[in-house]
């Protein structure tokens, strides 16, 4: 599938879903001529129209856009890294409030450095530890910003 056609399909699907949701919104005009649904309707329909135009424009002979290549197979190592980073990034955010700043940040950095800077265990460990300590020092101590406090932070005098 070409890039324009796929973009068009996404625009039609997203725009269509959005428009359908907008149609379910109440009118509630009360002096407000448009109400809460007209602007979203215009945007949703605009997305569908732009999507359809992309799909139709891509069907003209000799005017086809380039073929879509996300590189899922050729660059599967990159995609695996992106997937792992995404999952670990979300988990990092979820555990931070419970475990505090220092431990999750060190572990997150250790994971990311191991993923990116393979085979250099000591270098990664030092970088991860240094990063979490320095950022804690800068944000929590120097700039006095509030950071989540776990059991490790509660033992610190600052």
């Amino acid at each position, binding site marked *: 599938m070409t890039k*324009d056609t796929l*973009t068009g399909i996404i625009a039609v699907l997203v725009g269509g879903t959005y428009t359908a949701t907008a149609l379910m919104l109440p009118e509630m005009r009360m002096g407000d001529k*448009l109400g809460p649904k007209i602007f979203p309707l215009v945007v949703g329909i605009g997305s569908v129209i732009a999507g359809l135009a992309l799909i139709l424009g891509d069907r003209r002979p000799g005017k086809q856009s380039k073929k879509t290549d996300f590189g899922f197979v050729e660059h599967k190592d990159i995609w695996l890294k992106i997937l792992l980073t995404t999952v670990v*990034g979300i988990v990092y955010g979820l555990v931070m409030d419970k475990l505090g700043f220092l431990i999750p940040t060190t572990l997150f950095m250790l994971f*990311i450095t191991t993923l990116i800077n393979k085979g250099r265990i000591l270098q990664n460990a030092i970088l991860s530890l240094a990063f979490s300590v320095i950022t804690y020092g800068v944000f929590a101590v120097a*700039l006095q910003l509030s950071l989540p406090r776990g059991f490790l932070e509660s033992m610190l005098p600052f």
Partner: protein
Amino acid sequence: MQEIFANLGLGFQTAVTWTNMMWVVIGGTLGTIIGMLPGLGPATGVAILIPITFGMNPATALITMCAVYYGAMFGGSRASIMINTPGDASAIVSCFDGYPMTKQGRAGTALAISAIASFIGGMIGMFFLVFLTQPIANAALKFGPAEMFSLMMFALVATITLSEGNLLKGAVAIAFGLMLSTVGIDALTGIIRFTYGAEALQDGIDFLVIIIGVYAVCEVFKNYKDIGAVHKFDSKHIGRVWVSKEEWKRSLPPMLRAGPLGFIVGVLPGMGGTIATFMSYAMEKNLSKKPEEFGKGAIEGLAAPESANNACSCGAMVPLLTLGIPGSGTTAVMLGALMLLGVRPGPTLFTDHPEIAWGVIASMLIGNIVLVIINLPLAIPLVQILKVPTRIMLPVIMGLALIGTYFLNYSSFDFVVVMISAVIGYLFSKLEIPLPPLVLALILGGTTEQALRNSLVLSDGSLGIFVQKPISAVFIVLAAASLVYSLAKRKKQAA
């Protein structure tokens, strides 16, 4: 005129404090370092450094962000010159003649002229900025909702028509941005829209989270393919970081010509540094008596785009400061960070907080001088940062981006949003869907809808209000003209 100088004096009073000066130096240096790292531009720099501005007063915060922005503009070309890899898109042109100069053993000259041209371009940009902001802000104070709506429509249309790329994909990006802006409680009626049952979405989607996702985390993803990159160069062959009298003579006219051009391009939404640098390069090549030297180490080919780039960054501050409309990715990030600090840039900034508006302008003047001082004698030590392997830099940037995300709302949910927006941003880049229009629409969406609804309340539902009001009509005509111009240009290119 007297009012401008009085305001500038007030600005210097705000800017010239030990704290602000310290942040100009720190921000400028950090910006230079981030700007020179391959693949990371000023938007990424400002995005990951937002947390350091928390706890600052708004003036210091904006001064720091401007210093980062400006520093990144100075640093962007370092990697182009030394390793033929642009720091960001606006530094691509600097590879054309900068790297050949390095290969000829003239890296020192290239680094010097790039810093000097950045300074001169910045000063030209600042000159226009100082004299244009107040009149524009004064005019904008008279804008009602109809004028604001038309202005924002023009900004959105211009973002896709003035930039390169597919118009329809730009329109899709704008639609997606506007859709995201409508998520959450409707400000006028209190109705919850498009949350699909997710409580975390009721307050809307914080556009800064999306910005960090697409400008910082996504950039790290894009750099995953170059993890193994190690940039080597011999520092001994850089030579003296200075320019000869002859080289100075050759460079000055291109710098002076490129400055105003860059400024004008910067003011227009959607154009930005990349277009400014390419236009100035093409202009100099056309004007040159020896165009064949371009691409082979012609100093004019480096001086002009460097000057245009920095003047462009000053130009981009005009719509941000006077109208509250960011014309580029970086100014969008700055707008978001300021709104977080409770400051809304726009015409009222000049009446309600002139010390902030003019303090920033004064700090940019000072920053320009500070940065040329940093970038000339410290050019050689600074470029050593390019030798730090990508595999070390990327985790640090990722870590800073996520910590920055946490500071925005102290919300775990934001981590989900930032990571998903980074993945979507990465997929969009593969589909060549432009992200700046999406981000701009997301930022302006709420205000655009409100302006539209308020206008129609005033006109009793008649759309005629947008053409009956002269200023509004001008913006509508400009939007239409930019669309027609863009369509005609693309048709000509296709033919």
